[in-house]
């Protein structure tokens, strides 16, 4: 069975005043129906650009340089903008960090959710019923009374529910959630992710969750791909990657997060800063910060090493380990 979404060797260029950078470089991953893939990385690591490439929503300065993006076996890169628009409207949904930017402040909640049903030939009453139905699914209390409310009358968590409802209205097969809960309080964060997971259970949609929060990944995701400076450095099932991280960056990242149980005086840390995209190291991009770098690392980008069927790591250290 082919996966729902298959991205292979994706390269995305962004033109900037300082020259062209490859914001996404040779990125491959796939998402199956009913599963959630976490794209994890720090700011500037290319997570969001990867998603925008899949959605066909790159900014004007962006361009896909190479690779394939297949959705349900169809090549998305060969689609016209018109066709992509239709796919976005019905097959692939997207939720952004700040729901206020996704909602139009001038229209009521009801109008904005109803948008998705306008294409179908339904009566006003039918549309209303459907809208109420979707709002109920995202657990907005008393949805029939909230139809006429405007986004500013809703709290952050409620707005994010509306944004999810708008996406659900078209029952997408794939939902891309780009830091959907970063702007929300912790207790609300969990409610929203729990809601997404329930919806996934009902509809079997595939999900990509972009996040920098490793706690959320371990609680809500099936698979994870760790990105650093535009590339994936390690990928596999969350339980395996988090329990036994192989890439020094993944290890550093997991160690750097303070946890409630530890009694450490200091946090383990990754020295230095991520590289600027205009001035990338020649070999492995993590090499300048890597505690275990080898001679080869500075000059050659590591190959993929596979661990079992479902894990891969891009690190020269693996060469000795596997041989």
């Amino acid at each position, binding site marked *: 069975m082919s996966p729902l979404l298959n991205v292979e060797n994706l390269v995305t260029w962004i033109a900037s005043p300082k020259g062209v950078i490859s914001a996404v470089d040779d990125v491959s991953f796939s998402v199956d129906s009913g599963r959630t893939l976490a794209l994890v990385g*720090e700011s500037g690591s290319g997570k969001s650009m990867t998603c925008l490439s899949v959605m066909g929503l790159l900014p004007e300065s962006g361009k896909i340089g190479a690779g394939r993006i297949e959705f349900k076996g169809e090549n998305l890169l060969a689609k016209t903008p018109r066709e992509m628009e239709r796919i976005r409207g019905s097959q692939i949904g997207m939720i952004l960090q700040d729901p206020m930017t996704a909602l139009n402040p001038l229209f009521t909640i009801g109008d904005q959710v109803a948008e998705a049903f306008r294409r179908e030939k339904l009566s006003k009453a039918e549309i209303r019923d459907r809208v109420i139905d979707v709002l109920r699914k995202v657990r907005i209390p008393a949805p029939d009374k909230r139809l006429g409310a405007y986004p500013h009358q809703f709290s952050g968590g409620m707005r994010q529910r509306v944004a999810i409802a708008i996406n659900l209205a078209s029952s997408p097969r794939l939902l891309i959630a780009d830091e959907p809960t970063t702007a929300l309080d*912790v207790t609300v964060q969990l409610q929203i992710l729990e809601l997404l997971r329930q919806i996934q259970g009902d509809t079997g949609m595939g999900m990509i969750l972009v996040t920098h929060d490793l706690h959320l990944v371990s609680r809500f995701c099936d698979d994870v791909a760790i990105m650093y400076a535009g590339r994936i450095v390690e990928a596999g099932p969350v339980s395996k990657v988090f329990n036994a991280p192989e890439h020094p960056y993944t290890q550093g990242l997991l160690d750097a*997060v303070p*946890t409630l149980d*530890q009694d450490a005086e200091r946090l383990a840390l990754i020295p230095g800063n*991520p590289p600027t995209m205009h001035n990338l190291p020649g070999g492995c991009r993590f090499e300048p910060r890597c505690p275990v770098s080898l001679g080869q690392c500075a000059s050659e980008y590591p190959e993929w090493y596979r661990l079992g069927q479902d894990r891969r790591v891009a690190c020269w250290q693996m060469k000795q380990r596997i041989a």
Partner: protein
Amino acid sequence: MTHAFVSVRELTKEYPVVTGFLGKKATLTAVSDISFDIGEGKTFGLVGESGSGKTTTARMILGAEPATSGSVKIDGKPLMNEKGRVDPVLRRMMQPVLQDPYTSLSPRMCVGHIIDEPLRTQKLLSGERALAQRVSELLDMVGLPQDAARRYPNELSGGQRQRVAIARAIAPKPRFLVLDEPVSALDVSIQAQILNLLKDLQSEFKLTYLLISHDLSVVSFMSDAIGVMYLGRFMEIGPKDEVLRRSSHPYTMILKSAASTDEGAALPISGEIPSPLSPPSGCPFHTRCPFSQQICATTQPELEAGPAGQFSACHFAKDIRAGKPAGTCATLATGAMGR
């Protein structure tokens, strides 16, 4: 007990607000009856969701916001003098570090100037050479290269900017820093660097910290004592280990389960923080508490002392602490013990 360097008593902040079409007057209580001490060289962590009153508390302690009632003493002296002004000696002793290093640094000043500005304006140091010398020391302390002095904030990364903000804050040799979400705008790997730096500076200069964060794991890493706030009140307050290991308030437990990676530990919570304009009757948390009982809706629980120095504002704190099967509290306690 160490000598309390910062002592906050019954601090309350009310804002008069005008609501509705007819201009009805109402009172918004942002902070209500907050008391705590911070020992010299110690860190007190204030944790809570947005709108819980953390930042208002910090602003009152800094003297940036007059309190409606209550008092703040620093180093044994009242923060406000007889004229109702902030004591200038105490003001010099404390410095804030804010969340967003992108907006808290002037984009038009070079880093050297940002750092020496407080020294110039407070006339703590004069002479270009002495100032340059001090800036160079400060850059060293916060782990920035010497050439950073001539750079501008936009040339620096988020982590480097926060280092500049910290250098500026410690420039006048304060004894007390108010850290308002100092790492929430930073990436994970950078967060760890800044937290370690803050700890190093604390032990080197015996600094006292008030740390504000929504992230319980950050607060837990940094603090000696923790206060958990909800709608302007303390739900639970006490030594870190007591509050985190032997929590006796459902809200603390929920925050704890939210910060844990263990899925089984999740406690259910519904809804969002209510508006402080119309706070719930009784216990402010009862509308969202998975274990709320009848009494919770009618009677507001007072902060009551537990055995080991922590205080909890929950009618069932004793049961939770004992892990006694008292009604629904049984589930609660086992949920907590499971961790």
